């Protein structure tokens, strides 16, 4: 129970700190409403246009594929560290692993995800 008590005290302290910081600045902080208070701060330069830009989704595909394959290659790196201990079993398993990755890349290539410049309509239905 003493562990739980410590946790309760800690949680209360967190709560008091958070509420205190927001509450004190709310009650005794200054408030002002000038001409450019609501404007976005862009390092002194007037902001131009809207932030609701449209990105090409093709870029997103390549980016996400890059992240995924980057993560997967991390596992190959770990295998390389234990190359001698893993032996032939590890080698065969890794070959299979790389083969699966290759299959996925081939799938995406056939799907035309790497054609960044080609304009393709989004497959949206309904």
């Amino acid at each position, binding site marked *: 129970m003493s562990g739980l008590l410590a946790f309760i005290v800690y949680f209360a302290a967190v709560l008091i700190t958070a509420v205190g910081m927001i509450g004190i600045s709310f009650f005794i902080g200054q408030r002002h409403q000038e001409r450019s208070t609501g404007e976005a701060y862009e390092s002194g330069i007037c902001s131009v246009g809207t932030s609701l830009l449209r990105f090409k989704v093709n870029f997103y595909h390549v980016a996400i594929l890059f992240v995924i394959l980057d993560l997967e290659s991390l596992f190959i790196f770990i295998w390389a560290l234990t190359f001698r201990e893993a032996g032939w*079993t590890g080698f065969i398993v890794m070959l299979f692993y790389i083969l*699966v990755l290759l*299959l996925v890349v*081939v*799938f995406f290539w056939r799907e035309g995800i790497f054609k960044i410049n080609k304009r393709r309509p989004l*497959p949206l*239905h*309904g």
Partner: protein
Amino acid sequence: MNTSELFSLIPLMMVGGGILILIPVAAWKRNFQLAFAISTTTIIFDLAFIFIKGSCIKVDRASMLFKTDACALFFIGFFAFLALGVLLISYEYLKNFPGNKEEFLILILLGTLGGMVLAASNHFASFFLGLEILSVSLYGLIAYFGRQPHLEAGVKYLILASASSAFLLFGVALNYAQCGRLIFSGYGLPLIFVGLFFKLALVPFHLWTADVYEGAPAPVTAFIASISKGAVGVFLLRYIAQGSMNSQLVWITIAIVAIASMFVGNACALLQNNIKRILAYSSIAHIGYMMVIIYLFKNYGDVGGIRLSSIMFFYLIIYTLTNLGTFGIITAYSRWNQEMASLDDYRGLYWKQPVSAMFFTIFLFSLAGMPLTAGFVGKFLIFSAGIWSQCWWLLLILVVNSVVGLYYYLRIILTMSQEAEGRLVPLPVRLPVPLLISLGLMLSAILYLGIRPDSLLHWIQYFSQSLYSR
């Protein structure tokens, strides 16, 4: 890893191999019939392998990660059977979809593989891997057709499920900090329970259920209700059988969760007008009934544990089979661009489509626990376990909830028997053959198990023992 260990993993590798064949097929030659044939053959081969060669698998654990005891093998086969059911009901649903159809089958197989890995897992690494394979393929499946309700349900499930996975991973990390290994133990248990309870949709973590069931395409809802819940349920029992739960607080939590699930599930189901939402809330209540059995584990050691786990397994099997059948009926009248889920759509189904209305009635009876269906046997076993443990107060709550549950199942049946006034929904004249095969399989299983439950119970009692052998 030697040959016999590799041999024991063939049921899992077969499904993985099927996926690896399907990917190049989807990339080079898009043909829905071909892809469908490959995926169903994979599943049938997997089933046949377990059925014929299952007794040749002698090793109890394939590696540090997987257990391939009788329990794991049975549930790998059972999930293959459920996957076959899901594939068969989704054929007609998908057929007229103008986009890519093959990836849907790949995702179904992937999710099934995740469920199988969960059923066989003996280590937190394989458990988490299985759970993530299952949920990541579900994100894709729920939002597959890209319509607004699908996307909404998909995003809801994505955010909530990843939050629950984070809790679960934290629990696993606490376990590792305490043991230095990733074997199952009682450390970090509350956080692991948060993750499992979320997937099972128990009450404090149930808010996603109704929205996701309603928004997801009907075959995917069938998949969530059968394989996803079944796999996590099997894992929960395995975890409880191995991890030591000696804290009183855990048992009180389980009791509260069970009672709250039963009451909230049944009470909310009374107010719904959408069949998918009714079934979602009824699933919360059903998992609540199963948690009653889990609570009874409190007073018993290994011997009572075997008996209780066989009851829980039986209820889980019945529940998943029945749910797959129920959502199969909904799938029969839905297409990718139009779901027939409102209660009014089923008005007068008895007069227009007597056969499928009969199917639906029997599935609903089984959910309500009427005699001659398997649902009755499941409920009866829970009651008998409660009486056996003399846990009267929990039993009383269970009885009250079963009676309340009867109301909304009968309401659906009543709506089907009412005459349709004015509003006539165009129904397909004949149900497609694959769907009829799937529904027939589920129906015969439910009726057979309702009349001869001992045939399955005998098996279950046999493999429940392997759960406790160390």
